[in-house]
Protein backbone atom coordinates (compact mmCIF):
# COMPACT_ATOMS: atom_id res chain seq x y z
CA UNK A 1 0.00 0.00 0.00
CA UNK A 2 2.77 2.37 0.94
CA UNK A 3 4.55 1.52 -2.25
CA UNK A 4 1.47 2.34 -4.30
CA UNK A 5 1.16 5.61 -2.45
CA UNK A 6 4.78 6.41 -3.11
CA UNK A 7 4.41 5.52 -6.75
CA UNK A 8 1.15 7.21 -7.62
CA UNK A 9 0.04 9.72 -5.00
CA UNK A 10 3.21 11.04 -3.42
CA UNK A 11 4.63 12.82 -6.48
CA UNK A 12 1.46 14.87 -6.77
CA UNK A 13 1.03 15.32 -3.02
CA UNK A 14 4.59 16.43 -2.38
CA UNK A 15 5.38 18.72 -5.28
CA UNK A 16 3.45 21.81 -6.26
CA UNK A 17 4.83 21.75 -9.81
CA UNK A 18 3.42 18.24 -10.27
CA UNK A 19 0.03 19.39 -8.99
CA UNK A 20 0.02 22.28 -11.44
CA UNK A 21 1.07 20.00 -14.28
CA UNK A 22 -1.72 17.58 -13.38
CA UNK A 23 -4.40 20.27 -13.14
CA UNK A 24 -3.23 21.89 -16.37
CA UNK A 25 -3.09 18.70 -18.39
CA UNK A 26 -6.40 17.36 -17.06
CA UNK A 27 -8.11 20.62 -17.98
CA UNK A 28 -6.55 20.44 -21.43
CA UNK A 29 -7.92 16.92 -21.92
CA UNK A 30 -11.39 18.05 -20.94
CA UNK A 31 -11.51 20.55 -23.79
CA UNK A 32 -9.22 19.10 -26.42
CA UNK A 33 -10.39 15.47 -26.49
CA UNK A 34 -14.00 16.12 -27.59
CA UNK A 35 -12.65 18.55 -30.19
CA UNK A 36 -10.34 15.76 -31.35
CA UNK A 37 -13.30 13.39 -31.73
CA UNK A 38 -14.99 15.80 -34.12
CA UNK A 39 -11.75 16.50 -35.97
CA UNK A 40 -11.40 12.77 -36.53
CA UNK A 41 -15.02 12.26 -37.56
CA UNK A 42 -14.73 15.09 -40.05
CA UNK A 43 -11.60 13.41 -41.47
CA UNK A 44 -9.61 16.46 -40.46
CA UNK A 45 -7.12 14.70 -38.18
CA UNK A 46 -4.23 15.93 -40.27
CA UNK A 47 -5.72 19.40 -40.43
CA UNK A 48 -5.30 19.51 -36.69
CA UNK A 49 -1.67 18.65 -37.15
CA UNK A 50 -1.33 21.27 -39.85
CA UNK A 51 -2.97 23.84 -37.65
CA UNK A 52 -0.55 23.04 -34.84
CA UNK A 53 2.33 23.88 -37.18
CA UNK A 54 0.55 27.00 -38.32
CA UNK A 55 0.58 28.38 -34.77
CA UNK A 56 4.36 28.44 -34.76
CA UNK A 57 5.01 31.77 -36.53
CA UNK A 58 2.56 33.55 -34.23
CA UNK A 59 4.19 32.12 -31.13
CA UNK A 60 7.61 32.86 -32.61
CA UNK A 61 6.62 36.46 -33.27
CA UNK A 62 5.53 36.84 -29.66
CA UNK A 63 8.81 35.30 -28.55
CA UNK A 64 10.79 37.54 -30.89
CA UNK A 65 9.33 40.76 -29.49
CA UNK A 66 8.65 39.91 -25.87
CA UNK A 67 10.83 36.93 -25.02
CA UNK A 68 9.50 33.89 -23.25
CA UNK A 69 6.26 35.48 -22.04
CA UNK A 70 3.07 33.49 -22.06
CA UNK A 71 0.58 36.14 -23.07
CA UNK A 72 2.24 37.58 -26.21
CA UNK A 73 3.15 34.11 -27.44
CA UNK A 74 -0.38 32.86 -26.89
CA UNK A 75 -1.98 35.82 -28.58
CA UNK A 76 0.47 35.53 -31.45
CA UNK A 77 -0.27 31.84 -31.85
CA UNK A 78 -3.98 32.50 -31.69
CA UNK A 79 -3.80 35.12 -34.43
CA UNK A 80 -1.67 32.94 -36.70
CA UNK A 81 -3.90 29.93 -36.11
CA UNK A 82 -7.09 31.84 -36.79
CA UNK A 83 -5.68 33.36 -39.98
CA UNK A 84 -4.67 29.94 -41.29
CA UNK A 85 -7.87 28.22 -40.18
CA UNK A 86 -10.14 30.89 -41.62
CA UNK A 87 -8.07 31.24 -44.78
CA UNK A 88 -7.97 27.53 -45.48
CA UNK A 89 -11.60 27.09 -44.45
CA UNK A 90 -12.72 29.92 -46.70
CA UNK A 91 -10.77 28.60 -49.68
CA UNK A 92 -12.34 25.16 -49.29
CA UNK A 93 -15.84 26.54 -48.69
CA UNK A 94 -15.92 29.01 -51.53
CA UNK A 95 -13.71 27.44 -54.20
CA UNK A 96 -13.45 23.96 -55.66
CA UNK A 97 -10.30 23.21 -53.70
CA UNK A 98 -10.77 20.72 -50.87
CA UNK A 99 -9.85 21.48 -47.30
CA UNK A 100 -6.83 19.14 -47.24
CA UNK A 101 -5.07 20.95 -50.09
CA UNK A 102 -5.88 24.48 -48.92
CA UNK A 103 -4.89 23.59 -45.36
CA UNK A 104 -1.57 22.13 -46.51
CA UNK A 105 -0.82 25.23 -48.56
CA UNK A 106 -1.61 27.61 -45.72
CA UNK A 107 0.23 25.73 -43.03
CA UNK A 108 3.37 25.19 -45.11
CA UNK A 109 3.57 28.91 -45.79
CA UNK A 110 2.95 29.60 -42.12
CA UNK A 111 5.54 27.08 -40.97
CA UNK A 112 8.15 28.53 -43.31
CA UNK A 113 7.54 32.00 -41.90
CA UNK A 114 7.80 30.58 -38.39
CA UNK A 115 11.12 28.87 -39.02
CA UNK A 116 12.41 32.04 -40.66
CA UNK A 117 11.50 34.11 -37.62
CA UNK A 118 13.03 31.60 -35.26
CA UNK A 119 16.30 31.70 -37.15
CA UNK A 120 16.41 35.49 -36.93
CA UNK A 121 16.53 35.30 -33.15
CA UNK A 122 19.08 32.51 -33.33
CA UNK A 123 18.98 29.16 -31.59
CA UNK A 124 17.91 29.24 -27.99
CA UNK A 125 17.15 26.78 -25.26
CA UNK A 126 14.02 28.79 -24.50
CA UNK A 127 12.76 28.08 -27.95
CA UNK A 128 12.81 24.39 -27.19
CA UNK A 129 10.07 25.19 -24.71
CA UNK A 130 7.98 26.70 -27.46
CA UNK A 131 8.37 23.67 -29.63
CA UNK A 132 8.09 20.96 -27.01
CA UNK A 133 6.38 22.56 -24.05
CA UNK A 134 7.00 22.78 -20.35
CA UNK A 135 4.13 21.17 -18.55
CA UNK A 136 6.20 21.09 -15.36
CA UNK A 137 6.56 24.87 -15.42
CA UNK A 138 2.96 25.97 -15.75
CA UNK A 139 2.41 29.17 -13.75
CA UNK A 140 -0.84 30.72 -12.55
CA UNK A 141 -1.17 32.74 -15.72
CA UNK A 142 -0.95 29.65 -17.88
CA UNK A 143 -3.40 27.69 -15.73
CA UNK A 144 -5.91 30.56 -15.86
CA UNK A 145 -5.54 30.71 -19.62
CA UNK A 146 -6.08 26.98 -20.00
CA UNK A 147 -9.09 27.11 -17.66
CA UNK A 148 -10.64 29.89 -19.73
CA UNK A 149 -10.07 28.02 -22.96
CA UNK A 150 -11.66 24.87 -21.55
CA UNK A 151 -14.69 26.81 -20.33
CA UNK A 152 -15.18 28.48 -23.72
CA UNK A 153 -14.77 25.13 -25.47
CA UNK A 154 -17.27 23.23 -23.34
CA UNK A 155 -19.88 26.00 -23.47
CA UNK A 156 -19.54 26.31 -27.27
CA UNK A 157 -19.81 22.56 -27.70
CA UNK A 158 -22.93 22.43 -25.53
CA UNK A 159 -24.58 25.20 -27.52
CA UNK A 160 -23.65 24.06 -31.00
CA UNK A 161 -23.65 20.30 -30.39
CA UNK A 162 -26.67 19.49 -32.53
CA UNK A 163 -25.50 21.65 -35.42
CA UNK A 164 -22.00 20.23 -35.22
CA UNK A 165 -23.29 16.66 -35.34
CA UNK A 166 -25.62 17.54 -38.24
CA UNK A 167 -22.78 19.29 -40.09
CA UNK A 168 -20.63 16.17 -39.78
CA UNK A 169 -23.37 13.63 -40.44
CA UNK A 170 -25.24 15.28 -43.29
CA UNK A 171 -24.03 18.79 -44.25
CA UNK A 172 -26.40 19.14 -47.21
CA UNK A 173 -29.35 18.45 -44.91
CA UNK A 174 -28.21 21.09 -42.46
CA UNK A 175 -27.90 23.58 -45.30
CA UNK A 176 -31.47 22.80 -46.37
CA UNK A 177 -32.97 23.49 -42.93
CA UNK A 178 -30.67 26.11 -41.47
CA UNK A 179 -28.03 28.70 -42.22
CA UNK A 180 -25.82 27.49 -39.41
CA UNK A 181 -23.62 25.23 -41.57
CA UNK A 182 -20.86 27.70 -42.39
CA UNK A 183 -20.81 29.49 -39.02
CA UNK A 184 -20.57 26.17 -37.19
CA UNK A 185 -17.67 25.10 -39.39
CA UNK A 186 -15.74 28.25 -38.54
CA UNK A 187 -16.65 28.14 -34.86
CA UNK A 188 -15.33 24.61 -34.78
CA UNK A 189 -12.07 25.61 -36.48
CA UNK A 190 -11.78 28.43 -33.96
CA UNK A 191 -12.14 25.96 -31.10
CA UNK A 192 -9.45 23.76 -32.64
CA UNK A 193 -7.02 26.68 -32.74
CA UNK A 194 -7.96 27.76 -29.23
CA UNK A 195 -7.27 24.32 -27.79
CA UNK A 196 -4.01 23.93 -29.67
CA UNK A 197 -2.85 27.28 -28.35
CA UNK A 198 -3.91 26.24 -24.87
CA UNK A 199 -1.95 23.05 -25.28
CA UNK A 200 1.28 24.54 -26.49
CA UNK A 201 2.17 25.96 -23.08
CA UNK A 202 2.15 22.47 -21.70
CA UNK A 203 3.04 20.24 -24.61
CA UNK A 204 4.58 22.52 -27.22
CA UNK A 205 3.22 23.47 -30.63
CA UNK A 206 4.19 20.15 -32.17
CA UNK A 207 2.81 17.79 -29.54
CA UNK A 208 -0.30 19.64 -28.37
CA UNK A 209 -2.25 18.07 -31.21
CA UNK A 210 -1.34 14.64 -29.79
CA UNK A 211 -3.51 15.06 -26.71
CA UNK A 212 -6.31 16.06 -29.06
CA UNK A 213 -6.08 13.26 -31.59
CA UNK A 214 -4.77 10.14 -29.89
CA UNK A 215 -7.51 9.71 -27.24
CA UNK A 216 -10.13 10.41 -29.92
CA UNK A 217 -8.61 7.89 -32.31
CA UNK A 218 -8.47 5.32 -29.51
CA UNK A 219 -12.08 5.95 -28.44
CA UNK A 220 -13.27 5.27 -31.99
CA UNK A 221 -12.51 1.58 -31.45
CA UNK A 222 -14.84 1.22 -28.48
CA UNK A 223 -18.17 2.78 -29.31
CA UNK A 224 -20.59 3.51 -32.16
CA UNK A 225 -22.07 6.71 -30.79
CA UNK A 226 -20.67 10.23 -30.59
CA UNK A 227 -21.61 11.11 -27.03
CA UNK A 228 -19.93 8.11 -25.34
CA UNK A 229 -17.02 8.53 -27.74
CA UNK A 230 -16.36 12.05 -26.45
CA UNK A 231 -16.65 10.97 -22.82
CA UNK A 232 -14.34 8.02 -23.40
CA UNK A 233 -11.81 10.22 -25.20
CA UNK A 234 -11.74 12.57 -22.22
CA UNK A 235 -11.22 9.64 -19.84
CA UNK A 236 -8.41 8.29 -21.99
CA UNK A 237 -6.93 11.78 -22.01
CA UNK A 238 -7.08 11.93 -18.20
CA UNK A 239 -5.44 8.53 -17.85
CA UNK A 240 -2.70 9.48 -20.31
CA UNK A 241 -1.92 12.68 -18.42
CA UNK A 242 -1.65 10.92 -15.06
CA UNK A 243 0.39 8.05 -16.48
CA UNK A 244 2.60 10.38 -18.52
CA UNK A 245 3.36 12.68 -15.59
CA UNK A 246 4.19 9.76 -13.30
CA UNK A 247 6.37 8.22 -15.96
CA UNK A 248 8.19 11.47 -16.47
CA UNK A 249 8.64 11.91 -12.69
CA UNK A 250 9.94 8.44 -11.92
CA UNK A 251 12.05 7.91 -15.05
CA UNK A 252 13.16 11.54 -15.43
CA UNK A 253 11.72 11.76 -18.92
CA UNK A 254 10.46 14.93 -20.62
CA UNK A 255 6.80 15.20 -19.60
CA UNK A 256 5.18 16.24 -22.90
CA UNK A 257 6.34 13.22 -24.90
CA UNK A 258 5.61 10.95 -21.92
CA UNK A 259 1.96 12.07 -21.88
CA UNK A 260 1.57 11.67 -25.62
CA UNK A 261 3.27 8.29 -25.59
CA UNK A 262 0.93 7.11 -22.82
CA UNK A 263 -1.98 8.06 -25.07
CA UNK A 264 -0.20 6.21 -27.87
CA UNK A 265 -0.12 3.05 -25.77
CA UNK A 266 -3.87 3.31 -25.17
CA UNK A 267 -4.33 3.83 -28.90
CA UNK A 268 -2.46 0.67 -29.84
CA UNK A 269 -4.23 -1.31 -27.12
CA UNK A 270 -7.55 -0.07 -28.50
CA UNK A 271 -6.64 -1.11 -32.04
CA UNK A 272 -6.01 -4.62 -30.74
CA UNK A 273 -8.59 -5.10 -28.02
CA UNK A 274 -11.34 -2.54 -28.72
CA UNK A 275 -14.88 -3.77 -29.30
CA UNK A 276 -14.41 -2.67 -32.90
CA UNK A 277 -10.72 -3.54 -32.94
CA UNK A 278 -8.71 -6.11 -34.83
CA UNK A 279 -8.95 -9.09 -32.50
CA UNK A 280 -12.70 -8.82 -32.03
CA UNK A 281 -13.30 -8.57 -35.76
CA UNK A 282 -10.94 -11.42 -36.64
CA UNK A 283 -11.46 -13.94 -33.89
CA UNK A 284 -14.70 -13.59 -32.02
CA UNK A 285 -16.85 -13.00 -35.06
CA UNK A 286 -17.16 -16.67 -36.01
CA UNK A 287 -20.42 -17.05 -34.18
CA UNK A 288 -23.48 -15.40 -35.61
CA UNK A 289 -27.17 -15.22 -34.90
CA UNK A 290 -29.92 -16.52 -37.13
CA UNK A 291 -31.25 -13.07 -37.92
Amino acid sequence: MDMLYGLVIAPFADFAFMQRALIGSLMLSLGACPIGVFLMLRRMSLSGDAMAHAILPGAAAGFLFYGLEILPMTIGGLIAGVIVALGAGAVSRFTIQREDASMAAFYLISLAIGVLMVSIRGSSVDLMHVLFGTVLALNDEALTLIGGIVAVTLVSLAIFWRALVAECLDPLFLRSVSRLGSPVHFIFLGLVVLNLVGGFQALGTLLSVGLMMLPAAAARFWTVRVEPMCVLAVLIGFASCVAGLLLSYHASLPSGPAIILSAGVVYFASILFGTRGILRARIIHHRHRTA
Partner: protein
Amino acid sequence: MTNTCLTFRDLTLGYGSHPAIHHLDGTIRKGSLTAVVGANGSGKSTLMKGIVGVLKPMAGEVIRAPGVRAAYLPQQSELDRSFPARVVDLVSLGLWPRRGLLGRYTKEDRDDVSKALMAVGLGGFEKRPIDTLSGGQLQRTLFARVLLQDADLILLDEPFNAVDAKTVGDLIALIKHWHGEERTIMVVVHDLDLVRQNFPETLLLARQPIAWGETRETLKPENLLRARRFHEAWEENAPWCEPGEDAHGHDHHGHDHDHQHGVGPRAA
Protein backbone atom coordinates in the same frame (compact mmCIF):
# COMPACT_ATOMS: atom_id res chain seq x y z
CA MET B 1 -52.34 34.32 -55.49
CA THR B 2 -53.03 32.35 -52.36
CA ASN B 3 -52.92 28.87 -53.77
CA THR B 4 -49.46 29.24 -55.32
CA CYS B 5 -46.67 27.47 -53.49
CA LEU B 6 -43.73 28.27 -55.76
CA THR B 7 -43.24 30.85 -58.46
CA PHE B 8 -40.35 30.68 -60.91
CA ARG B 9 -39.64 34.02 -62.49
CA ASP B 10 -37.24 33.89 -65.42
CA LEU B 11 -35.16 31.45 -63.40
CA THR B 12 -31.72 30.50 -64.71
CA LEU B 13 -29.60 28.10 -62.68
CA GLY B 14 -26.27 26.63 -63.62
CA TYR B 15 -22.62 26.03 -63.05
CA GLY B 16 -19.85 28.34 -64.24
CA SER B 17 -21.44 30.44 -66.95
CA HIS B 18 -23.44 27.54 -68.38
CA PRO B 19 -27.12 27.24 -67.62
CA ALA B 20 -28.61 23.91 -66.53
CA ILE B 21 -32.05 25.47 -66.15
CA HIS B 22 -32.65 28.20 -68.71
CA HIS B 23 -35.25 30.94 -68.18
CA LEU B 24 -37.91 28.96 -66.38
CA ASP B 25 -41.22 30.66 -65.76
CA GLY B 26 -44.26 29.22 -64.08
CA THR B 27 -45.88 28.27 -60.84
CA ILE B 28 -46.38 25.24 -58.64
CA ARG B 29 -49.83 25.06 -57.12
CA LYS B 30 -50.25 24.38 -53.41
CA GLY B 31 -51.14 20.76 -52.80
CA SER B 32 -50.01 19.60 -56.25
CA LEU B 33 -48.06 16.42 -56.93
CA THR B 34 -45.63 16.97 -59.79
CA ALA B 35 -43.21 14.55 -61.38
CA VAL B 36 -40.09 16.12 -62.87
CA VAL B 37 -38.78 14.09 -65.79
CA GLY B 38 -36.11 14.54 -68.43
CA ALA B 39 -32.88 13.08 -69.77
CA ASN B 40 -29.59 13.09 -67.84
CA GLY B 41 -28.29 16.61 -67.55
CA SER B 42 -31.64 18.18 -68.29
CA GLY B 43 -31.57 20.20 -65.09
CA LYS B 44 -33.89 18.22 -62.82
CA SER B 45 -31.61 18.04 -59.80
CA THR B 46 -30.40 21.58 -60.44
CA LEU B 47 -33.98 22.81 -60.25
CA MET B 48 -34.43 21.02 -56.92
CA LYS B 49 -31.27 22.61 -55.53
CA GLY B 50 -32.45 25.99 -56.76
CA ILE B 51 -35.81 25.62 -55.04
CA VAL B 52 -34.35 24.53 -51.73
CA GLY B 53 -31.79 27.34 -51.94
CA VAL B 54 -28.49 25.47 -51.85
CA LEU B 55 -27.76 26.77 -55.37
CA LYS B 56 -28.11 30.50 -56.02
CA PRO B 57 -29.82 31.55 -59.27
CA MET B 58 -27.67 33.07 -62.02
CA ALA B 59 -30.68 35.11 -63.03
CA GLY B 60 -34.30 35.38 -62.07
CA GLU B 61 -35.68 34.00 -58.86
CA VAL B 62 -37.67 31.33 -57.09
CA ILE B 63 -40.35 32.79 -54.87
CA ARG B 64 -41.70 30.63 -52.10
CA ALA B 65 -45.10 31.52 -50.72
CA PRO B 66 -44.62 33.00 -47.25
CA GLY B 67 -44.41 30.44 -44.45
CA VAL B 68 -43.76 27.50 -46.74
CA ARG B 69 -41.19 25.13 -45.27
CA ALA B 70 -39.34 22.76 -47.56
CA ALA B 71 -37.98 19.27 -46.97
CA TYR B 72 -35.42 18.04 -49.44
CA LEU B 73 -34.17 14.54 -50.16
CA PRO B 74 -31.17 14.96 -52.45
CA GLN B 75 -30.12 12.50 -55.12
CA GLN B 76 -26.55 12.47 -53.99
CA SER B 77 -26.68 12.79 -50.29
CA GLU B 78 -23.60 14.16 -48.59
CA LEU B 79 -24.42 11.82 -45.75
CA ASP B 80 -21.33 10.41 -44.05
CA ARG B 81 -22.25 6.78 -43.45
CA SER B 82 -19.17 6.09 -41.39
CA PHE B 83 -20.25 8.67 -38.83
CA PRO B 84 -21.01 6.95 -35.52
CA ALA B 85 -24.75 7.46 -35.41
CA ARG B 86 -27.78 5.25 -35.01
CA VAL B 87 -30.87 5.27 -37.20
CA VAL B 88 -32.72 7.19 -34.53
CA ASP B 89 -30.01 9.89 -34.48
CA LEU B 90 -30.22 10.34 -38.23
CA VAL B 91 -34.02 10.48 -38.32
CA SER B 92 -34.07 12.86 -35.34
CA LEU B 93 -32.31 15.46 -37.49
CA GLY B 94 -35.75 15.85 -39.04
CA LEU B 95 -36.87 17.45 -35.77
CA TRP B 96 -34.70 20.47 -36.59
CA PRO B 97 -37.53 22.61 -38.01
CA ARG B 98 -39.51 21.91 -34.83
CA ARG B 99 -36.79 22.11 -32.18
CA GLY B 100 -33.96 24.02 -33.82
CA LEU B 101 -30.50 24.20 -32.31
CA LEU B 102 -31.28 24.18 -28.61
CA GLY B 103 -34.82 22.88 -28.13
CA ARG B 104 -34.99 19.75 -26.04
CA TYR B 105 -36.45 16.60 -27.61
CA THR B 106 -39.58 15.64 -25.74
CA LYS B 107 -41.14 12.23 -25.22
CA GLU B 108 -43.61 13.17 -27.92
CA ASP B 109 -40.77 13.89 -30.34
CA ARG B 110 -39.24 10.51 -29.68
CA ASP B 111 -42.61 8.85 -30.25
CA ASP B 112 -42.89 10.70 -33.54
CA VAL B 113 -39.48 9.39 -34.59
CA SER B 114 -40.64 5.84 -33.88
CA LYS B 115 -43.88 6.44 -35.77
CA ALA B 116 -41.98 7.80 -38.77
CA LEU B 117 -39.79 4.71 -38.81
CA MET B 118 -42.88 2.50 -38.59
CA ALA B 119 -44.40 4.36 -41.53
CA VAL B 120 -41.46 3.44 -43.78
CA GLY B 121 -41.42 -0.14 -42.53
CA LEU B 122 -38.35 0.24 -40.32
CA GLY B 123 -39.98 -0.21 -36.93
CA GLY B 124 -37.44 -1.56 -34.45
CA PHE B 125 -34.45 -0.24 -36.40
CA GLU B 126 -33.91 2.64 -33.95
CA LYS B 127 -30.69 1.38 -32.41
CA ARG B 128 -29.03 0.12 -35.59
CA PRO B 129 -25.80 1.94 -36.52
CA ILE B 130 -26.29 3.62 -39.89
CA ASP B 131 -23.26 1.91 -41.43
CA THR B 132 -25.07 -1.43 -41.16
CA LEU B 133 -28.05 -0.37 -43.30
CA SER B 134 -28.56 -1.49 -46.88
CA GLY B 135 -28.97 1.13 -49.61
CA GLY B 136 -32.75 0.72 -49.67
CA GLN B 137 -33.02 0.81 -45.90
CA LEU B 138 -30.98 4.00 -45.82
CA GLN B 139 -33.27 5.55 -48.41
CA ARG B 140 -36.30 4.65 -46.30
CA THR B 141 -34.57 6.09 -43.23
CA LEU B 142 -34.16 9.36 -45.12
CA PHE B 143 -37.85 9.20 -46.08
CA ALA B 144 -38.66 8.85 -42.39
CA ARG B 145 -36.64 12.01 -41.77
CA VAL B 146 -38.59 13.88 -44.46
CA LEU B 147 -41.78 12.60 -42.82
CA LEU B 148 -40.66 14.01 -39.49
CA GLN B 149 -39.81 17.40 -41.00
CA ASP B 150 -43.53 17.89 -41.51
CA ALA B 151 -42.88 20.27 -44.41
CA ASP B 152 -45.42 21.94 -46.69
CA LEU B 153 -43.19 21.53 -49.71
CA ILE B 154 -41.48 18.19 -50.25
CA LEU B 155 -38.73 17.81 -52.85
CA LEU B 156 -37.56 14.29 -53.64
CA ASP B 157 -34.70 13.82 -56.08
CA GLU B 158 -34.77 10.32 -57.56
CA PRO B 159 -35.99 8.75 -54.33
CA PHE B 160 -36.55 5.33 -55.93
CA ASN B 161 -32.96 4.64 -56.91
CA ALA B 162 -31.65 1.34 -55.56
CA VAL B 163 -34.99 0.59 -53.98
CA ASP B 164 -36.78 -2.73 -54.55
CA ALA B 165 -40.27 -2.96 -56.08
CA LYS B 166 -42.10 -3.54 -52.83
CA THR B 167 -40.42 -0.57 -51.18
CA VAL B 168 -41.17 1.64 -54.19
CA GLY B 169 -44.82 0.70 -53.65
CA ASP B 170 -44.57 1.64 -49.96
CA LEU B 171 -42.86 4.94 -50.72
CA ILE B 172 -45.40 5.81 -53.43
CA ALA B 173 -48.17 5.11 -50.91
CA LEU B 174 -46.43 7.48 -48.50
CA ILE B 175 -46.16 10.17 -51.18
CA LYS B 176 -49.86 9.78 -51.98
CA HIS B 177 -50.63 10.08 -48.30
CA TRP B 178 -48.73 13.39 -48.24
CA HIS B 179 -50.64 14.45 -51.34
CA GLY B 180 -53.85 13.70 -49.47
CA GLU B 181 -52.65 16.02 -46.69
CA GLU B 182 -52.47 18.88 -49.19
CA ARG B 183 -48.70 19.08 -49.13
CA THR B 184 -46.95 20.25 -52.27
CA ILE B 185 -44.68 17.57 -53.67
CA MET B 186 -42.14 17.51 -56.52
CA VAL B 187 -40.42 14.24 -57.36
CA VAL B 188 -37.65 13.63 -59.88
CA VAL B 189 -38.45 10.27 -61.49
CA HIS B 190 -37.01 8.31 -64.42
CA ASP B 191 -39.63 5.57 -64.73
CA LEU B 192 -42.30 7.04 -67.02
CA ASP B 193 -44.78 4.24 -66.31
CA LEU B 194 -44.53 5.05 -62.64
CA VAL B 195 -45.19 8.69 -63.48
CA ARG B 196 -48.23 7.89 -65.64
CA GLN B 197 -49.75 5.73 -62.92
CA ASN B 198 -49.13 7.89 -59.90
CA PHE B 199 -48.46 11.53 -60.71
CA PRO B 200 -51.27 13.88 -61.77
CA GLU B 201 -48.88 16.50 -63.14
CA THR B 202 -45.54 16.39 -64.88
CA LEU B 203 -42.82 18.84 -65.79
CA LEU B 204 -40.77 17.61 -68.74
CA LEU B 205 -37.38 19.31 -68.73
CA ALA B 206 -34.62 19.60 -71.27
CA ARG B 207 -32.80 22.58 -69.80
CA GLN B 208 -35.92 24.47 -70.77
CA PRO B 209 -39.38 23.14 -70.00
CA ILE B 210 -40.57 21.12 -72.99
CA ALA B 211 -44.01 20.60 -71.55
CA TRP B 212 -45.64 21.17 -68.21
CA GLY B 213 -49.06 20.23 -67.06
CA GLU B 214 -51.33 17.23 -66.86
CA THR B 215 -49.23 14.07 -67.05
CA ARG B 216 -50.96 12.41 -70.00
CA GLU B 217 -50.67 15.56 -72.09
CA THR B 218 -47.08 16.23 -71.08
CA LEU B 219 -45.84 12.73 -71.81
CA LYS B 220 -47.23 12.65 -75.35
CA PRO B 221 -44.85 11.03 -77.84
CA GLU B 222 -44.08 14.27 -79.68
CA ASN B 223 -43.05 15.98 -76.43
CA LEU B 224 -40.87 13.05 -75.42
CA LEU B 225 -39.23 13.14 -78.84
CA ARG B 226 -38.50 16.85 -78.48
CA ALA B 227 -37.06 16.23 -75.05
CA ARG B 228 -34.84 13.48 -76.37
CA ARG B 229 -33.40 15.68 -79.11
CA PHE B 230 -32.07 18.04 -76.48
CA HIS B 231 -28.36 18.62 -76.70
CA GLU B 232 -26.79 17.60 -73.41
CA ALA B 233 -23.26 18.92 -73.83
CA TRP B 234 -22.24 22.44 -72.98
CA GLU B 235 -20.80 24.43 -75.81
CA GLU B 236 -17.74 26.33 -74.76
CA ASN B 237 -18.32 28.98 -77.40
CA ALA B 238 -22.09 29.11 -77.16
CA PRO B 239 -23.23 32.69 -77.71
CA TRP B 240 -24.04 34.75 -74.62
CA CYS B 241 -27.69 34.77 -73.77
CA GLU B 242 -28.89 38.40 -74.14
CA PRO B 243 -32.03 39.48 -72.33
CA GLY B 244 -33.65 41.04 -75.38
CA GLU B 245 -33.53 38.26 -77.91
CA ASP B 246 -34.06 35.57 -75.36
CA ALA B 247 -37.48 36.81 -74.32
CA HIS B 248 -38.79 35.00 -77.38
CA GLY B 249 -37.27 31.75 -76.38
CA HIS B 250 -38.77 31.33 -73.00
CA ASP B 251 -42.06 32.86 -73.96
CA HIS B 252 -42.49 30.09 -76.39
CA HIS B 253 -41.73 27.36 -73.93
CA GLY B 254 -43.62 28.91 -71.09
CA HIS B 255 -46.94 28.84 -72.88
CA ASP B 256 -47.96 25.24 -72.33
CA HIS B 257 -47.88 25.65 -68.67
CA ASP B 258 -49.46 29.02 -68.39
CA HIS B 259 -52.53 27.90 -70.24
CA GLN B 260 -53.03 24.86 -68.12
CA HIS B 261 -53.04 26.64 -64.85
CA GLY B 262 -54.44 29.88 -66.09
CA VAL B 263 -51.50 31.78 -64.69
CA GLY B 264 -51.71 34.81 -66.87
CA PRO B 265 -49.75 37.86 -65.90
CA ARG B 266 -46.07 37.85 -66.60
CA ALA B 267 -43.72 40.68 -67.17
CA ALA B 268 -42.47 39.31 -70.47
